[in-house]
Structure formats: structure tokens, C-alpha cells
């Protein structure tokens, strides 16, 4: 049906992305929203890495014997490095966000996004 798995990966990752977006947009719990962002990011990683992988190539690591670095059948290492970096960033953002949510919860007693009304004109 498909030449490669790329369309399938695209479809699946976009589906996940959509679900995550839905979570971001309709969930009222701040915790769930941050989780949904993580899921959306992961969906993008999946899309990127998945689309970048060409069937038949191997990891860009000289594994056997390690005497020679042969780039002929290796996949592009750059996306992997990028994703590594991005994952760490994602973790950092989630950690910071969750710590804020926890603190917010302790201060106000709720963590519903539709009840956040501290700011604005009238106080």
C-alpha cells in the first residue's frame, strides 16, 4: 500500500498531535494541559524522526569493531541530535510549568484554567 512507513507515521503522529491539541484546548485541569503539551511535542518528535528515517539504513554509530566510520548506510544523525535537545527542553518546560502549577494550587486551592481570574481590570 505504501512505499514506506512514512505516510502511516505521519497519520499516526498527526492524530496524536490532534488529540493532544484537543486536550490543550478543552481540558480544564492545568496539570492535564501541561501533559497534553508534552504529548503534542512527542507527536511532533515522532513525525520528524519517523519521516526522516529511510528504511534500510542503520544508526549513525560505528558499532562493529569500531575501527572505521562508514557513513554509507547511516541515517542522518542531525534530527536525532535535534530531538535529543528538544526533549530536554520539553522536560525543562514541563518541570517548570508543573512546579508553578503546584505552587499555584497551594496558593489558590484550585488548578482549573477557567477559574484563573486574578488578573484583569477589576480587583
Amino acid at each position, binding site marked *: 500500500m505504501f512505499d514506506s512507513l512514512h505516510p502511516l507515521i505521519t497519520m499516526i503522529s498527526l492524530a496524536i498531535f490532534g488529540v493532544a491539541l484537543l486536550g490543550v484546548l478543552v481540558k480544564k485541569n492545568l496539570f492535564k494541559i501541561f501533559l497534553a*503539551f508534552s504529548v503534542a511535542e512527542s507527536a*511532533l518528535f515522532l513525525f*520528524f524522526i519517523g519521516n526522516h528515517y529511510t528504511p534500510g539504513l542503520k544508526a549513525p554509530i560505528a558499532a562493529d569493531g569500531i575501527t572505521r566510520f562508514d557513513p554509507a548506510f547511516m541515517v542522518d544523525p542531525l534530527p536525532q541530535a535535534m530531538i535529543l535537545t528538544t526533549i530536554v527542553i520539553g522536560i525543562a518546560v514541563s518541570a517548570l*510549568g508543573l512546579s*508553578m*502549577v503546584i505552587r499555584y494550587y497551594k496558593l489558590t486551592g484550585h488548578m482549573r484554567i477557567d477559574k484563573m481570574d*486574578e*488578573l484583569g*481590570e477589576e480587583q
Partner: protein
Amino acid sequence: MSLLLFILLPLLAIFLMPFYRAYLHYVSTVLSMALFGLALTCKAALPLVERVAVDLPLAITFELSSVSWLLVTLFTLSMSLFSLYHLRFSSNKALFVGTNMLLVGVIGLVLSRDIFNIYIFFEISSISAYLLTSLNQDAKAYGGAIRYMIIGAFASLFFLLSIMLIYLTIGVLDLQMIAQRFNLIDEQVQYLILLSLFIALGIKTELFGLNFWVPDVYQASRSAVSGLFSAMLSKSYLFLLFHLAYLLHVSTSQMAFLTLVAALTFAVAEFSALKSRETKRIFAFSTLGQIGLIALALSYGDTALTEAALFLIIVHALAKLMLFLALDLLERRLGSTKSEIFARFESLFLMAVFTVGALSLLGIPPFAGFAAKLSLLKGLAGLEAYGAMALILTVSLIEAAYLFRLLSGFRQGEQKMVVTLSPLERLIFGVMMFALLLLGLMPQPLLALCQEAAQAMLGGYHAAL
């Protein structure tokens, strides 16, 4: 000499923080002033291009063109003033880390010419902004920070999407190379990339439709920090958005769309400020308005207008920083930022500061804002964009209404609290006021720099039209 010093030095200072915990405010001041000096010395060698580690196409390129030099100088100057202002207060770790990281982020944004590297700085500046927003550690601050964070995360999703698409379809990350091959790819994908970039950067640039969160964030932050956001953060994204737009040669209709969005940003924000009673929100709306104005100027892709826009960026950054720092002073003394506080203090000097700032924002001579507005109007006149001229002049009147409403607060109120300023504060505000006046009276030197920068920023864009 290396451009990366602008990034590595603050980072080093942050990492080595445990060694001088009690002296962070001094370190921050010395550092930002040193960077400012460094920036000034770079002027002679422009344009500087530096590739990290290896050569093209692999390397991350940093470029200090006339325009990024202008912005870097502005950012380091703003940071110096900010740090000088905070010298009086005790050493604050969070403030130190947050502001210096923000500096790293915004400098990186304007220097880097590698899309993924830009993403890193995008995140650095965003996360430090979240951190700075939550600095007060009360429900308001967290409310604002969380709101900011959710929106920022949304923006970064789209930025990530566009980077991924660029790499998948073009296979390079260097902006120059992307620009060269951008036309070769599928038009639909081109459009999707541009649109994702627009959403991501538009949120950060605070353009209309994507900027509804801004007043809340400014309100949640400390006033001084809001000043930094206004002076550095939004400006760097503004640069980035239009740098990319010029570089990728967006079509005329897409630029016209940007013009429309910018005009809406300007008009809606200024209108919204009219009845506000919260000074921080008013200043936030005013910032949005000015950003709209700058974006409007940039969206024509014309040398004269770009020159005006760059000038406006500098002038607005100075004026807004001054206003926000003065507001911070008041907030610390009076414990509020509602517009009523203007009736509750007694200080001729602060009144002068607010007046000069407001007049400059409004573009009233002899202050610098006027020179900016004048060159803007001249540029628009040169393009025969009379509608935009009319819009600017009309909406300026609305701006005048709320700014003068604030100023008229000075003469109300009975029990006034005498606010005295330390000599250092007087010096800082005095220098800023003087700068605004000087730039208003003698804008030519800076305008000449801006013109040079405008040519550098536009690159070949104009020729393509």
C-alpha cells in the same frame, strides 16, 4: 574577539553564581555594562560573521550586521540601566538568573542565523520570561506566568513544526541556505511553514489576534521586569519575524496581510487602553500599540520605513523602560499600580520622568518619539500610504487621551506621599530623559545608523519586489 562572548559571558556569570551570591547585583551591572562596551567596540568591525566550530554548511552562523548591532547595543544598554536601577536593592538570585538569561536569549535571537539555534534561544528567552513573570510568587504572578507558559508552549509547538518541516524538505538549518532553497519546495509546504512561523513568532511578537495575553503578563510581572519585556523581548521577536519575512521573500499579499495585522495591533491596543485604570496594563497596551506601529512600518519592506521602525524600536525601548522603572519605583513605595497612584505622590522629578516618557511615546516634540514618528510619516508619505498615515494620526489621539489622563492625575489628590529619589536613581532617570531629549533634537546620527541598519536588514528584499 568573538560574537559568542555576548552569550557566553552572561552564561558563565550565571553558572558561576554560587561564588558570589551576595554580590549578584554588582556582577549583573558590571557584566551588562561590559557587554555594552563590547558592543560599542564592535561597531568599527561591522558586519561580523562568525561560524561556530566548523564551516558552512554545518556550522551555526552568528552574524553581527548593522541591524543586529543596533539591537544588541540597545539590549545591553537596557540591561545596564535595569541593573543600575536594581543596585539599590539586595542581591536577588532569581532576578539575576532571569534577567541575564533573558539577555542571553534576546541577544541570541538577533545574532543567530541558524533556525534550530534560534529555537534554543527562543526557549531560553521564553523560559526566563516565565521565570521573571512569576518573580513575585503570589497567586497573581503565578496566574500570569502559567497563562504565559501555556501560550508560549503553544507557540513553540508551531515553531518546532516549522523547523521540522524546513529540515525535512530543505535539509539545512542555516537561514541563508534555507532562503536560497526555499522557493524550490512545494508551495503548500512553503505556505504551511510560513504560517507556522507566523503563528509562533506572532504570539511572541504580540501581534493582533495573538496578543490577548500580553496585558495580563505585564500586570503579573514586576513593573521593572515588564519594562525589560517591553524593551528587549518583544523587540527581538519583532526583528526576527521581519528578518525571516525579508529573507524568505514572502509575497506582496502576505506582506499586506502583515500590514493589516500590524495596523489592527496598533489600533485595537490603543483603543483598549483608553478606559483602563491599571497603569501596568495601560503601559502594556501602549507597548502593543507601538509594536503594531513598528510592525506596520516594517511590513512595507521599504528602506526609509525600516529606518524609521528601527529608530522607533530604540526610542520606544528607552521610553518604556524609563516609564516602567519609574512605575516600579512608585509601586515599591505606594504598593499599587492603579492609575490613582499618580495622585498620591509628590516628586517633581518623577513627574518629569513620567511626562517626558509619555510625551516621547506620543511622538510629541522635542522628544525622541517625535523624530521617530516624523520619519515614519515621511516614509509612509514616500510610499503614498495615506491610509496608514491617517490611521496613525487618528489613533495617536486616542493614545494621547489615555496618557494625558494619567498625567493629569498628578494634580489631583490631597494627601501626597513625598517620594525622594536616591542620587543614583536621579542619575539613571536623568540620563534616560536626557537621551530622549537629545535624540529628539539631534536624531541624525542615530538615524544614519538606522539607515545603514535598514539596508542591512532588508538585504535583497526590496529588489525582489
